[in-house]
């Protein structure tokens, strides 16, 4: 490699750094918010059996783990949330006292998660994070469809 090539590469890296750092900061803030939402959802779903859903608490735990891996990859971290930090939709599900309330609260929670993930997909820059977030959006969209009682009309 010539001196000129080394200098060119250093210059290109310096040019790219501010934009990438800003994008990573923004992506990190979004991912932190999504981790909190997944941990809250995992808590709210724990022990619940709902029609059409296999084990949403385990899935949400997997989502939070995958998002934590992405957050660590950009040099950031976040503490697990505590029970008193549940978001409104997760708290409503956690406090539902009968089957109908649980079904309605779960459907509302999924709709709320879809809205957050949709916003995240629009804003995220880093392709690896975007892929993880997109697949989790797809998962919540599937759950919402199954919970809504919209069984296939033949």
């Amino acid at each position: 490699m010539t001196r000129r090539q080394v200098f060119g590469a250093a210059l290109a890296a310096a040019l790219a750094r501010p934009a990438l750092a800003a994008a990573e900061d923004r992506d990190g803030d979004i991912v932190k918010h999504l981790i909190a939402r997944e941990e809250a959802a995992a808590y709210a779903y724990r022990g619940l059996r709902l029609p059409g859903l296999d084990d949403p608490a385990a899935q949400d735990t997997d989502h939070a783990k995958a998002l934590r891996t992405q957050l660590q990859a950009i040099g950031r971290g976040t503490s697990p949330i505590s029970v008193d930090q549940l978001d409104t939709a997760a708290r409503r599900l956690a406090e539902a006292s009968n089957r109908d309330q649980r079904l309605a609260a779960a459907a509302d929670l999924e709709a709320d998660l879809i809205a957050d993930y949709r916003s995240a997909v629009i804003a995220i820059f880093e392709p690896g994070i975007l892929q993880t977030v997109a697949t989790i959006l797809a998962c919540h969209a599937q759950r919402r469809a199954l919970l809504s009682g919209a069984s296939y009309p033949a």
Partner: protein
Amino acid sequence: MVGRRALLLGGGAAILAAGCGKDERVSPPAPEPALLRSLAAERALGAAMATLEMRLLSARSRERSEKLASALSERGRDPHEALDVTGGGNEALPRGRRALEAYVALLPRLQGRDERSFGADLLAQAAADVALMGDALGTPPDDPFPGTPT
């Protein structure tokens, strides 16, 4: 002739100045090839749904195909470039997986709020319909990350 010290000083100053300058981003690859793959995958899914006589689901799949075809036309590409298949009822579940994979792969190539919204909505709607199809076929989804490339 420029000495090594002058070159280093000049280089350092240039890098410092560049770091203070306007943010630049490298553009992602053009989205048309990924749009064509998504259209082909959606058409294959829709054909399988139609073969299984899932009329509502196949109608919604057709709507997604039409949106993709319009997006391609607006970009000056011919939607007929995308493969169009028929039948495939026994291939419905793998076709559903492939459609979700195509949408996930499409997203990083879409830039700006409107394009990303378009891709996110296609993915969410297709995922919901693939779940309903799987449930109707006795195979409800259990993947926490549907659309992950295989």
